[in-house]
């Protein structure tokens, strides 16, 4: 089947397009109601119809006889319009749970080595550089695999995309038992890191099951809960290791056996996804009817729009220092507490786990804070909120590096985690407004920037003997503060920047300027026009004609 790039760019990395919260939901609802009106004759939800994507020929679980009797209310495409977290109803909520749990499993296996490093470094005779390089390797693989995953989801569908990745990366997890030295360790961590691309299949799959009104909340929750895996593993692996040790294994064998647990999780989740999951909610006939009418855009043009917009690069850098530092900290924090404060392995693990687990609410909270700021101050409020939250995270990171007692270090770490993770949420509350045409690519680049920032930070501060780990944390905090400053330069001509007021350019002009005259004649820009109209609320309170004070 021809692979339309529109599906690729929108769904490959619609990473937490919108983050949580009812106020934002109303804004999103406004976006899509308007765009529906504009393009009703063509298709149901034009700017996001591509999110159903080409799911390949897999019709697993779909019966052409079903008449749409679902547990949740659905729209015309059989996508759920309501997000019922505690349900496992087939197919929508079941998909949600399968999806976030398999993404979380991949986080568990990617960071499984981190809390066990104090044992592994003695077994494999690692130096500080080796440990640091392994950390860099663990986050680098997915930069590439996430880009490929979009294409895989287009060809095979998200269910197979997820299952393929999870089950094919199980051997990489099991191969930890063969590792004998630094080279092997770095290689295996690199290969395991590929499975973080399940993030893409997770978000893509959500968009086939949930309507665009709530896709932001759903994707954001899935991403946040998935990221929690980085915290769960810090708790899980030391406990598993302890149990295996108590059963009689020596230290240097016990950690290898412990890696079987994430490996089994991969296999179990892969099988569950294959047997319980389904690509489409149902009504595949309707899907085929709609498919022919998607506006096909050109890859080159979309890339050009994304790359030439300077705001893209500002947010790539910013995400590298919110998500990036979160990933780096996942890799170093357990070892840091073990060495600096002479804790037992599982105690260090518990503390390190609380860093990652804060994702459960911190990330949505960041999106919420951004929405609150937007309600009163529009886009300028969002920019300020992001700057404040991320800089606060940086300050707490500096404090963490300088903390000399255990209690201060734990408090600093928790505050740092809240700052960094909320900043991730706040970043993606702004990213959708950078461009309408290239949303997918920009989201993808931003996501990749996160991994890149993580690799870079670990390379500079945690792989050399030049800095002790506490100095590394301090300098990482300084770098966060420095790399958050560029957000002051981000200016939306229609809404202003942090310090400058808006110009006379309107939102319509801004978004439609991405299209050439020829394209406008073909009505390709109508989606952007509709989006611009619904983005009026980003002008802040002044923009509303009926303001209740």
């Amino acid at each position, binding site marked *: 089947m021809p692979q339309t790039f529109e599906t690729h760019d929108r769904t490959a990395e619609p990473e937490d397009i919108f983050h949580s919260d009812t106020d934002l939901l109303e804004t999103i609802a406004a976006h899509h109601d308007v765009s529906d009106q504009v393009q009703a004759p063509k298709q149901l939800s034009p700017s996001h119809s591509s999110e159903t994507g080409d799911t390949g020929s897999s019709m697993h679980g779909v019966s052409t006889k079903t008449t749409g009797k679902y547990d949740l209310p659905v729209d015309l495409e059989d996508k759920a319009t309501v997000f019922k977290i505690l349900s496992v109803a087939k197919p929508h909520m079941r998909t949600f749970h399968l999806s976030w749990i398999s993404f979380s499993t991949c986080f568990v296996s990617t960071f499984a080595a981190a809390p066990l490093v104090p044992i592994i470094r003695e077994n494999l005779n690692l130096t500080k550089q080796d440990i640091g390089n392994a950390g860099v390797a663990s986050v680098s693989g997915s930069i590439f695999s996430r880009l490929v995953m979009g294409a895989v989801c287009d060809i095979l569908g998200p269910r197979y995309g997820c299952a393929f990745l999870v089950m094919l990366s199980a051997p990489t997890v099991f191969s930890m038992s063969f590792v004998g030295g630094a080279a092997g360790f770095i290689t295996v961590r690199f290969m395991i890191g590929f499975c973080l691309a399940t993030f893409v299949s997770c978000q893509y799959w959500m968009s086939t099951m949930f309507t665009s009104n709530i896709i932001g909340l759903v994707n954001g929750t899935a991403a946040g809960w998935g990221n929690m895996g980085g915290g769960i593993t810090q708790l899980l692996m030391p406990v598993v290791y302890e149990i295996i040790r108590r059963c009689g294994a020596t230290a240097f064998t016990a950690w290898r056996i412990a890696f079987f647990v994430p490996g089994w999780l991969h296999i179990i989740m892969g099988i569950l996804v294959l047997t319980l999951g389904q690509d489409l909610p149902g009504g595949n006939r309707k899907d085929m009817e709609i498919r022919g009418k998607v506006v096909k855009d050109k890859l080159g043009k979309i890339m050009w729009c994304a790359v030439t917009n300077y705001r893209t690069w500002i947010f790539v850098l910013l995400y590298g220092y919110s998500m990036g530092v979160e990933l780096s900290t996942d890799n170093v924090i357990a070892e840091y507490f073990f060495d600096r404060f002479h804790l037992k392995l599982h105690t260090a693990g518990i503390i390190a786990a609380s860093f990652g687990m804060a994702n459960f609410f911190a990330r949505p909270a960041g999106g919420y804070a951004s929405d609150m700021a937007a309600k009163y101050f529009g886009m300028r409020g969002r920019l300020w909120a992001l700057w404040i939250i991320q800089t606060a995270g940086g300050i707490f990171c500096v404090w963490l590096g300088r903390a000399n007692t255990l209690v201060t270090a734990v408090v600093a770490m928790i505050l740092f985690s809240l700052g960094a993770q909320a900043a991730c949420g706040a970043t993606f509350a702004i990213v959708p407004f950078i461009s309408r045409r290239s949303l997918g690519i920009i989201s993808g680049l931003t996501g990749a920037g996160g991994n890149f920032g993580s690799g870079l930070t670990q390379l500079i501060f945690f792989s050399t*003997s030049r800095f002790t780990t506490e100095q590394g944390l301090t300098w990482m905090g300084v770098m966060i503060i420095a790399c958050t400053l560029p957000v002051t330069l981000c200016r939306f001509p229609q809404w202003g920047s942090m310090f400058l007021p808006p110009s006379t350019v309107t939102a319509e002009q801004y978004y439609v300027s991405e299209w050439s005259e020829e394209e406008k004649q073909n009505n390709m820009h109508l989606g952007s026009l509709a989006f611009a109209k619904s983005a009026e609320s980003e002008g802040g309170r002044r923009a509303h004609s009926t303001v209740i004070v």
Partner: protein
Amino acid sequence: MAITKLLFASLLICSMIQSSHGATKERLFTDLEKGALEITATPSRTGQGVVLAAGVDKLSITWKVSSTATKEAEFKIIKVKLCYAPVSQVDRPWRKTHNELFKDKSCPHKISSFPYDPTVKTAQSFDYTLERDIPTGTYYVRAYAVDAQDHEVAFGQTTNEAKTADLFSVQAISGRHKSLDIASVCFSVFSVVALLVFFVNEKRKAKIEQSK
């Protein structure tokens, strides 16, 4: 919010505790009496370039209190430890030598710990089999004499002060097992095969349905 207030409160309390901790003088390694114990460690295999195998080879450790020792009356317990030579500490900050005794990480491996019997004046010896969790590296042996408050008062080591003489090398166990390797391969193969079987099966079913 209540949580923010709680956080700030705990923050204040923590900083107060830290500042009130005061200036208790940390016990330093340089304060200990040097050479109070004379100790030698003879590996079970010696020779140029011999590397001892963890879990297999032994050290025969002989020790006695030196005639020049002054604090002998305080000795209550003797703790014998395996310590890293400087070459094994390079690029490994978790093995660093610190002067403050509580911070020092250069002697993490316990060999033996036994009460000191002041009536026995001759040299005593015992055998120690290198444990299976000893990492690969170069080592020497140090014995601390500890007083009734569990504070070190004196020490002796098998090497010189520069830690260059009488060192021995140990090769750690790999931790790998054949059974582990086999299990690993089995599960990996299962994962890949299960996926392919499923995929092929579904494609076949889809083709059959299509042709109907």
